[in-house]
Each structure stands twice: as C-alpha cells, then as structure tokens.
C-alpha cells in the first residue's frame, strides 16, 4: 500500500513536469496549429543556461529567474526571426524547421557543455519528515513550484488584458487585428512564455534525471502524450493530461512489478512503462479523438 502511494506521489511529481511541457506545446499549438518538436530541446538548453549561472556563483533561484528570462528572449527571437518569415508556409516546411531547431539546440548544448552527464543541484533542503518514505522533499518542491507557476499563468490569461489579448489573437487573429491587437507580437510573446515555462520545468526535473543533452527527449514524449490526452486545444486539459500520464506511467511499472512478484512472470516493468503509457494514450485518443477536454473543431467548408 505504501509502495502504491509512493508510486502515485512520484507520478504526480513527474506529471507536474509533463504538465508544464504539455502546456508549452498547447500554447504554441492553439496560436499556430503547429507542434513545436523543439520544445524539449529548448527547455534542455535553458536548463544548461541555469546550470552555467549557478556555476558562476549565483544562487539557484536567481539563476533560474535569469535563465527563464533569457529563455523568454530566445523564444521571442525564434518566433520573430525564424518562424515569422514562414507564415503561410506548408505545415511540412514548419515541421522541418522545428526538427532543425531541435538539432541545433541539441548540438549547441553538446558543443558548449559537452555530452557528459552533470549533476544538478536541488534548491530544496534535504530534510526527513513523517511520510518522507512516500515522497521526498525535492518531489514536493517540484510539484509546489510547477503548480504555483501554472496557477500564475492561468491567472495571467484569465484576468489580465494582455492575457486576454493573447487568447483572442490565438483564437481569431483577424478579429483580434480588427480590435487593435498586434497579433504578431502576441505570437512572439506566446513563444517567449512557452520557452520560459520550459526553463522552469527543466530546472525542476534536472536534479532527478541529471543534466545532459538528452534529458528532455522522453519528457517531451510524455508531455506530448499529456497534451493529446487532455485535448491539444485545451490548456487546462493539457495540464491535467500531463499529471495523468505521470501517474499512469508509474502505476504501470508498479503493477508490472507486482505481477512479477506474485506470479513470478515478468510482463511489464520499468523498461516498458513508456510504451504502455503511450498505448493507453492511443486508446483514449481512439475513443475520444479530441482528447478528454478538447473540443472537436469542425471546419466550415
């Protein structure tokens, strides 16, 4: 029982990271109908920036704030310089550009910081407390920080004029222009925010998965799965989906181990949890193509 709780708790912790990645993907998708395959590598690069600032002697939170700020600027610049000229290009050319970005960030990180695995400090104190057998302090901190960030984002989109303008621009760019919204800047801002979210997610997960250029590749897949399960057009759904995939993945491993212990047959374990989680995701999507919270968009022809 305690083991089960432990698995759920650590599922929620990794789910928090998937939720961030899912939200970053959804933010760009709702505005452009493109999936940013480079989102994970951008987050990885931001995490290296954060690490570098910590090496320079800055405190963890200062380093993270600066890294998130730099990532925001990089996100804005990518939109303005690389994606802007592609407006109206075919979906396939945009995919190629995203894959190019992915490769660029990957090899840049490797070239600057080398491919060797580095440890990344946790900002949370190593304390033991009642229940620390179930969830460690870093996992709790990870969940708290990401939930605080996600809440701040939702408040921003819901209650500020700028947030409203960004939603309006994503939904109906033509009408947004007609009320005076500079749609191009809203898009760039969306890219900046997505990149900053990635920076926070990366720095939160790096103490667990360690810092290396591949650190985000499976996380991106999970985030992607979370976004699809929740509904790629629904930010709230994507966040829920992220958490769900995190918990699901750990439960798969848990029940796999359990069957092995009780029946002595090995069916699934840690190695297969990604595939099984993805199978469950695909099943949900077959039953509910728009995701759990997504709206089916019928295009008028």
């Amino acid at each position, binding site marked *: 029982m305690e083991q089960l709780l432990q698995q759920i708790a650590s599922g929620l912790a990794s789910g928090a990271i998937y939720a961030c990645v899912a939200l970053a993907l959804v933010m760009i998708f709702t505005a452009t109908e493109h999936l940013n395959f480079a989102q994970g590598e951008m987050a990885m690069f931001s995490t290296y920036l954060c690490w570098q600032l910590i090496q320079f002697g800055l405190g963890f939170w200062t380093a993270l704030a600066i890294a998130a700020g730099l990532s925001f600027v990089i996100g804005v610049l990518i939109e303005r310089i690389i994606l802007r000229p592609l407006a109206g290009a075919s979906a396939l050319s945009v995919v190629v550009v995203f894959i190019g970005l992915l490769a660029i960030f990957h090899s840049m990180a490797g070239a600057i910081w080398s491919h060797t695995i580095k440890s990344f400090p946790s900002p949370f104190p190593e304390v033991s407390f009642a229940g620390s057998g179930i969830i460690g302090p870093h996992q709790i901190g990870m969940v708290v920080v990401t939930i605080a960030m996600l809440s701040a984002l939702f408040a921003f989109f819901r209650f500020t*004029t700028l947030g*409203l*303008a960004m*939603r*309006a621009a994503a*939904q*109906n760019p*033509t*009408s*947004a*222009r*007609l*009320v*005076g*919204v*500079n*749609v191009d800047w809203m898009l760039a801002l969306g890219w900046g925010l997505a990149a900053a979210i990635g920076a926070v997610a990366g720095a939160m997960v790096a103490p667990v998965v360690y810092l290396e250029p591949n650190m985000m590749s499976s996380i991106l897949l999970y985030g992607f799965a979370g976004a699809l399960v929740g509904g790629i057009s629904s930010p709230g759904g994507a966040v829920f989906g992220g958490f769900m995939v995190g918990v699901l993945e750990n439960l798969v491993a848990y029940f796999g181990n359990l069957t092995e212990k009780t029946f002595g047959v090995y069916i699934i374990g840690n190695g297969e949890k990604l595939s099984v989680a993805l199978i469950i995701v695909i099943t949900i999507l077959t039953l509910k193509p728009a995701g759990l919270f997504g709206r089916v968009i019928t295009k008028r022809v």
Partner: protein
Amino acid sequence: MTALLQVEGLKAFYGPSEALHGIGFSLAHGGITTILGANGAGKTTTLRALVGMIRREGKILFDGKPIDKLSTEAIARLGVAHVPEGRGTFTGLSVDENLRIAAYTRSDRAAIKDDMERVFGYFPRLKERINQQAGTLSGGEQQMLAIARALMLRPRLMLLDEPSFGLAPLIVQEIFRIMRLINSEGKVSVLLVEQNAALALGLATEAYVLETGNVVMSGPAAEVKNDEGIRKSYLGY
C-alpha cells in the same frame, strides 16, 4: 467641410486578381453611407480594403489623414470599427471577454465600464448572457454582440457588413433601430454594406451601387430609393 472618409481610385486584390477596379466614395461626418450591390459585387472587399485586411492601392483619407499604408490594428486604433462578414465573434471567449477585448485600444478603465453599461442599454439580452460562451449565442445575439463590440472601441466610424444577414425580420428591425440611435446619439458615422437595399436606403443618407468591382451609380439615398429605373436595373426590387 471635409468628409470623414474620402476614398479615391481604390483597387483591391486577392492574390494577383484585382477585385476592385478603382472606386471612389465619401462619407460625411456623422453621416450614414450605404454600399449596395448583388452577390460578388465587391461590397465585402471594399470594407476589407478600407481596414487593410487585403492588399489595396489608392487613396483613403480618414478625417483628412491617409490610412492606406496603415496596418489593420493601427486603423482600429484611429477609431475605425469594422463589423466583418460573419461577425468576427471570438467564439471561445465569453460575452464579457468579447466586450473587454474590443476595448483593447483604450486604457480609460472607468469609461470602459460606462460604455459596457451603455451597450447593455442598447442590447439588454447581452447582459443576461454576459458569462455565456459567445459561440453559443444565437445568430441575432451574435450580431448584437458584434455591434456592441464595435461600440466598445469608441469608434468614430463603424463599418458594417450585412448586419441583416440570416436574421429574422423582427431582429433586423431592432438592430437597424439601434444603429440609428448609435448614429444620432453616439455621433458615430456609419458605412453600411447591405444586400437588402430597401432596408439600407431607409437608414442611409448617401448610397453607392457596386457592380463587379466598379461604382455604377451613386446619389442621396432618398433619390436612389425613389428612382424606379435604378431600383429595377441595379437593385432588383
């Protein structure tokens, strides 16, 4: 007195093809001008060209200043509110959010609140549905919302593309009655595009008739209305 809107030699393009072939018209301060014409005459295109939604050439003076090089959002900031064909509702946002985003160019919070109350005075139904998702409003309600959104900009000029389209006669009458009020009380000049010529000529002071991208006839609305020849040959009623 100079006109609020003065258009000369306006051409508009969809890709390489020219849809307006150099039209001219004007709209007096505080006036209501209507542009009439059959399907495909270029009415919608004219409004799109005015606010820079499509490529255009020619002279467009708004209150004496050229706006033909300005972006759509810059023209909106000057106080030109365009209620486009299809109404341009933000379907995923609530009625309240639709109205708030419509006042995006303004920073006078107190006045925005007052204007919100004023549009609810015109359209009480919208107030009842303030938290409803706009995409779930009925067609008539969405048209009311579209006009209400235009008002939230505090426009000096309102462009209306077929506000009667697809609506029951009673709702249409209501909307036209309110348009008249907005024009007289609110000092908002109106450029009205309509297929329903009888209706538009009842409201407007000036009329232009478009045919395949050219102005083929123009004059005071009352004259156009009473000229049977024009009615028969251009307006088909």
